[in-house]
């Protein structure tokens, strides 16, 4: 992790994010976007988040682990159930982390 690597990401992230925020306020009328593209926007966050969660739970060491010994999968399931039941972000994060800690002791 070099300094130039990090700053490429920070400045690149700055440019793409700011251009997106400026897009219709300063640059283009919304109607110019194809409808399919407009519809796709709301699907991006769930797709990205699920795409990051699944490998972290199912491939904890980079390879398949669907056993009861996979503490991250078990704690992830606890967090998912909590999130669905309570919709409370902080409770989900706290209990999710705590349950990983407990499962790793067992």
């Amino acid at each position: 992790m070099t300094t130039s690597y990090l700053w490429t990401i920070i400045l690149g992230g700055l440019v793409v994010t700011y251009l997106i925020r400026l897009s219709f306020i300063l640059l283009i009328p919304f109607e110019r976007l194809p409808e399919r593209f407009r519809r796709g926007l709301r699907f991006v966050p769930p797709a990205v988040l699920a795409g990051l969660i699944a490998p972290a739970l199912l491939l904890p060491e980079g390879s398949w682990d669907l056993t009861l010994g996979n503490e991250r999968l078990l704690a992830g399931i606890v967090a998912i159930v909590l999130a669905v039941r309570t919709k409370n972000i902080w409770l989900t994060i706290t209990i999710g982390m705590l349950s990983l800690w407990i499962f790793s002791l067992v």
Partner: protein
Amino acid sequence: MRAASPSLEFLTGARDQLPILLGVVPFGIIFGALARSLGIPALEAQAFSLLIFAGSSQFIAAGLIAEGTPAFVVVLTILLVNLRHILYSATLAPYLSKLKFRWKIMLAWLLTDEAFVVSSVRYQRPHEGYPHWYLFGTGLALWASWQISTFLGITLGSIVPGTALLDFALPVTFIALLIPTLNDRFTLVVAITGGILSVLFSTLPFKLGLMIAILMSVGLGVLLELRQDAPIREGESS
């Protein structure tokens, strides 16, 4: 409630943002601490919040950086994650069209999920008072809290030693963020497909598997939705 002057609108906007800040501040602290524990230096960790200023994309970028993902893939992922701001930009654009250039570039800078959500309520009555000052108040309150909380996290994070389990804070945070976005069966299908494809493609180089999984599952969501709407939408211009 009626806010008559620019400064009163500004303060009202900042005040209406307070309940949301209660949720944002711990999030900023977690980001600062996590970035440090992943090996990102303090200055760069703060620069993420100062310059990118978009919570979920900062967490996702930090996770990708920790895995040594090439910079262009990280930037591309930030782009995809923040693409939803296009909707906010488009929604607010008609209301901001008469403002001066410097107002536009400043309000665009402060445009986040939270500022948008709070001020879109205010913009239901756009013709009275100074709604752009209200938006400025919500945006600046959020920006300041995000900087301070990131700084706190960076500072606390270097005191609290990292543990082997801390990397799990990322997926568990993502779970907490994901569930509220699943508000119909299309989003649910997109999330499940995205998860499965991401695992299947996880061996591809440069984390490209994630990009492919995102694009394919979003495409599937759009197709399914268009198919369902087709009979109703026919002949409609929108």
